[in-house]
């Protein structure tokens, strides 16, 4: 079994990445758009946060990271709505452009570190002690973002964004500007993702230009795992339940990875395990359906 340290660290990591998963909750669940910008906006958040920290503004850097992510989301939205590019391709285009932009933000260096004194985690640690700094700060951030997201989705604008993802035809023939709501949604989603990247940069004390690779897959897997688990406890996935599912799923995913490491698979099969988990999680609805069907058929024959 994994050590207590490993267990607690997995929860910490899960909480930090849950911000990214919340972003995917907004784009994939609410807006129904598969947004691949995530791989790029995650790194963008880290790059902006580290650059601002090196310039002496660590906390401002976090906010700037969120703003930068929002802008990345707006670019993808523009490509989709005005240029009428297919959503997946629009996301890929922005993600590709962000590789260069991230490098530029990082002063053309592939790897940009900060010292522990510059990290907000260690600054927070002065208040609560080193052992709690990770868990508390990450937990606070995750809780705060869940509240913000749920409140936002209950405002008139938030309702319009939800409707856009639910029934775009209806929205287009109503007085709601669907292009506007999509842009707002994608901007908000990518802002969350960037905030996640910013936090990880402070947690690990560096930003690296390749650190976002594979994020969208991890995020979607986490989201779905979270939903499967939360659905055991609630009848219907309300907005609050969905947001909490994002956090829960992210933590569980990290625990699964930690457990996979414990089982000591050959080092090169970690990705295969991840793919298996993602595939299982994503096919769970279909598996559930076919088991239901099998039961009905069985009862029909009896």
């Amino acid at each position, binding site marked *: 079994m994994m*050590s207590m340290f490993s267990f607690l660290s997995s929860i910490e990591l899960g909480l930090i990445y849950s911000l990214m998963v919340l972003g995917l909750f907004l784009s994939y669940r609410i807006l129904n758009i598969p947004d691949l910008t995530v791989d790029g906006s995650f790194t963008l958040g880290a790059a902006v946060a580290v650059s601002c920290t090196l310039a002496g503004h660590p906390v401002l850097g976090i906010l700037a990271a969120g703003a930068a992510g929002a802008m990345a989301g707006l670019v993808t939205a523009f490509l989709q709505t005005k240029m009428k590019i297919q959503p997946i391709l629009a996301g890929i285009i922005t993600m590709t452009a962000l590789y*260069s932009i991230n*490098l530029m933000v990082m002063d053309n260096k592939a790897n940009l570190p900060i010292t522990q004194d510059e990290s907000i985690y260690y600054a927070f640690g002065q208040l609560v002690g080193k052992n709690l700094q990770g868990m508390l700060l990450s937990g606070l951030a995750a809780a705060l973002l869940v509240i913000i997201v749920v409140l936002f989705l209950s405002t008139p604008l938030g309702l319009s964004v939800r409707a856009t993802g639910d029934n775009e035809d209806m929205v287009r023939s109503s007085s709601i500007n669907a292009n506007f709501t999509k842009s707002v949604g994608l901007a908000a989603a990518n802002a969350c993702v960037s905030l996640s990247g910013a936090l990880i940069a402070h947690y690990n004390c560096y930003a*690296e230009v390749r*650190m976002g690779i594979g994020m969208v897959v991890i995020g979607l897997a986490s989201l779905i795992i979270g939903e499967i688990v939360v659905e055991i406890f609630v009848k219907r996935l309300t907005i609050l339940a969905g947001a909490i599912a994002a956090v829960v799923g992210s933590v569980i995913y990290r625990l699964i990875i*930690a457990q996979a*490491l414990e089982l000591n*698979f050959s*080092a090169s099969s970690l990705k295969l395990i991840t793919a298996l988990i993602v595939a299982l999680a994503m096919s769970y609805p279909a598996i559930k359906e076919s088991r239901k069907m099998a039961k009905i058929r069985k009862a029909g024959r009896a």
Partner: protein
Amino acid sequence: MKKFMSVMMAGMMMATMAGCSNGTEQKSGSADSAGKLQIGVVQIMEHTSLDTIRESFLAEMESLGYGEDKVEFDIQNAQGEQTNLSSICKKFVGDNVDMIVAIATPTAQAAAASTSDIPIVFSAVTDPVEAKLVADPEHPDKNLTGTSDAIPVDEVMQLCQKLTPDVKKIGFMYTTSEINSQVTAEKAIQEAEKMGYETQLMTISEVSELQQAAQSLAQNVDAIYVPIDNTIAQAMKVLAQVGLDYKIPIYTGADSMVQDGGFATVGIEYDKLGQQTAKMAKSILEGTPVSEVPVETLDEFGTFINKSTAEAIGVEIPAEIADNATLMGE
């Protein structure tokens, strides 16, 4: 739901079987078994240079008396995903390992963020000061020390002067996502300009761009220099062909790249780096405090020249250089 869980467990069991039967170096991760030392070895991804360091490190540890009878090595690989680096390092810390060996810059950074007590020996970090791993390489201030794969760029430029004196303009290439490569290339450009060469820089972001970027560069320069770049090293044959097509020498950062068709280098041998890392690890395991183990670079650099490349581009290797170099490419 229960059935789903059992399906998942079954899946993981099967994968465990497959995994266990594969790994010859894997040990079951249990707590301290009968006083054996535990060392966690982690790298960011599979790569020839990183793999070579790891292999030669383990071999040297064995020959220094720290083989598998005395040490449990937990070997992990983040498979290119930096998120896994954190998880792996946390696992090491939770398992209370006696030392972490971190290969490559982000690996060392993730390890540093996970523990400030367990000694970390890094390798293949070109500039540990820039990476904020040590403030002073002579006196490491934290729990980190290790080997740097910095190479003597001045010696390469001098070799260029001697072997190919007609070269006036040198082109430099590196992959933008590799900090080691970038740092070395920038130093090399400075050095070259000091020596009076004209320089031009061409960067790529991934291996598919190599051929066209190299061709575009080759048209304007008399020689190309590529430092220790993992991406380009993997596709060395492509770059070598461009050199042959345009008949210009390709100076590289590592001997393996010359082997693969480059022209020449005064450069790094990754297995020597691994061995040196093992020696440092041994002294720390035997009680030397980390602050007294300075960061090391290789003290000897061999000269490597590829004979058939030389012939193909029409360069004659003067005898006094050939005598002191390793000739490759028969």
